């Protein structure tokens, strides 16, 4: 931990954390360029030229029309999921406490599945139902404040109902519609266009700075409510602000790409292990989420499978294997006694 000073301003910087974020961003840039410049129908050289503004018409169409929005969408969704995951895990002090648990994802999923089955507009349906579910969970958990565990348990209850509703819809629909809905539920970036990038970019533009600013108080909140209010924090108001940010981030991300599994759970855990930082690490988690998702999507497009796999398949496998490997290594390294939060 170092302190940077400039006149009357000072900023405490976690050196290893900052280095990790820088490396992650560098990797992210490499993967993004790879994703935009490789693939069929276009040589890497032509794609790269188009990316730099010297492309021919075909290359411009492919890169700007299809590949750039897809890569950007992956980046933004990963960032949003990683950041919101870090916030909620820290708020609930539970590694299982992802934004899914507040009901946003399941609400969005139920709304989207319903819209797919009746043939309505998916994005607004998902967004509306997702936010509604988030508000419902907060309202049901509110009783002179929302304690961390009660919020998540109420969320589990509401989630269970929404998932049942989804299972009901899936078994009653005809196979074609049901499979479309299932693909959406796995989470996919296929067919991404600028119309899906913009809503998320705007949300991130507003919510990510807020998340980064609030995350400093979040590490005080991790010390416990009494200590935090003793340090002068207004706990309930802070918690509501953090929840709103997390819900907005994950709600919009899920609405544009489907509930991509495991990024929100794995990114904060991976980031915490990479930075060895005790705090919530919103920035590192956001960068990890973005890298995880863009890498998974690159693989999803390039793997020689019978059809193109939705990215949600690969985030689970990649993130799961990596987290399992980290856990195994930590257990082997320190014998017993090493313990995750």
């Amino acid at each position, binding site marked *: 931990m170092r302190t940077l000073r400039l006149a009357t301003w000072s900023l405490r910087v976690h050196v290893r954390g900052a280095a990790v974020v820088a490396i992650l961003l560098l990797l992210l840039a490499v993967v993004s360029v790879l994703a935009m410049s490789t693939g069929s129908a276009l040589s890497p050289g032509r794609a790269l030229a188009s990316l730099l503004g010297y492309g021919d018409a075909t290359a411009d169409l492919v890169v700007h029309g299809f590949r750039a929005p897809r890569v950007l969408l992956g980046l933004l969704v990963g960032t949003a999921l990683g950041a919101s995951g870090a916030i909620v895990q820290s708020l609930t002090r539970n590694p299982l406490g992802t934004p899914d648990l507040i009901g946003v994802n399941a609400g969005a999923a139920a709304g989207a599945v319903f819209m797919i089955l009746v043939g309505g507009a998916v994005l607004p349906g998902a967004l509306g139902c997702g936010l509604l579910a988030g508000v419902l969970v907060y309202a049901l958990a509110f009783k002179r404040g929302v304690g961390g565990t009660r919020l998540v348990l109420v969320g589990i209850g509401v989630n269970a109902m929404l998932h049942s509703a989804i299972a009901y819809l899936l078994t009653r629909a005809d196979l074609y519609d049901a499979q479309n809905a299932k693909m959406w539920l796995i989470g996919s970036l296929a067919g991404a266009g600028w119309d899906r990038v913009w809503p998320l970019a705007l949300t991130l533009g507003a919510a990510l700075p807020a998340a980064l600013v609030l995350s400093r108080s979040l590490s005080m909140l991790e010390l416990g409510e009494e200590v935090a209010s003793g340090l002068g924090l207004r706990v309930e108001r802070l918690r509501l602000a953090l929840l709103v940010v997390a819900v907005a981030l994950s709600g919009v991300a899920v609405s544009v790409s489907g509930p991509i599994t495991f990024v929100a759970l794995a990114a904060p855990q991976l980031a915490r292990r990479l930075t060895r930082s005790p705090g919530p690490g919103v920035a590192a988690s956001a960068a990890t989420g973005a890298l995880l998702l863009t890498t998974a999507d690159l693989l999803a497009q390039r793997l020689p*499978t019978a059809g193109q796999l939705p990215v949600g398949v690969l985030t689970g496998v990649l993130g*799961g294997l990596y987290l399992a490997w980290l856990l195994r290594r930590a257990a082997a390294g320190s014998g017993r006694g090493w313990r995750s939060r």
Partner: protein
Amino acid sequence: MRWTGLGLCLAALALVAGLSIAVGAQSLDPATVWQVLWHPDAGQASSIVHDLRIPRTLLGLCVGAALGLSGAIMQALTRNPLADPGLLGVNMGASLAVVCAIMFFGVEDLTVWVWFSMAGALLAAVAVHLIGSDHLVLAGAAISACLLGAVNAALSLDAGVFDQWRYWDVGALNGRSMEIVVQVAPFVAAGTLLALALGGGLNALSLGEDVGRSLGLRPGRTKILAALAVTLLCGAATAAAGPIGFVGLMAPHAVRAFTGADHRWVLAFSAVVAPALLLAADVLGRVIVRPAELESGIVTAFVGAPIFIYLLRRRRFA
């Protein structure tokens, strides 16, 4: 006080089990049901009661008890109130095994799926344990995510597999023959005995491993046995009825508000309350959309979740 409560819960369970035999999509009057229950004949009523409703009720009892117990153990073992019995990777292991059975072996028979999903559940639990017995929650989540990825890959590439899988994944008690009850009952029985014997060990474990050790218990052995019990119970339940998630998470919570933190009581109550809830949901699912039926996996959440939220708002929860 607790004994009275347990007696009341058992009475409620008996009542619901009775209802489960008496009530169904095909309405039979209670006198007929009573008559054919003890004197089976060749008639339609007798066939409904003996071939459909009794196996279904027994299955509900087995599955419900297994889910309640495995949920209670899982929450004690991980000391995490959000842990559900599937967390050990059991549900996802079973799910992947069923997908493999359909995809590679062309199996469409529920009774064969049972063996596949038991094996899948066991393998997944072993993998989770090998990776991180010290942080089961994360190891379980990591392995579950990998397995879910594999399941989703299969489902998104093969519409035929998806079409069969979606009915299994809902979680239901209907359409299961007596044969399935006989298949899973030994596993549930073994798991139940093991679970009920573990109560004291789990109490010591909840004080922390060091305290447990100084009390003369062996926390390592308790944890392994507890994980084994969860795998047997939750694996058998999922094999028989598909993944029914919410009961196993909710029952121990609801029970703990009444019994306090003593795991011996939490286990005993969970084993009674969970099947009562599951069977009640199943009976309700048979009557609300007559003559069609709603799968109990669906109704359970819609009956259980409001009660759960009401309890959460009323009381302080551990």
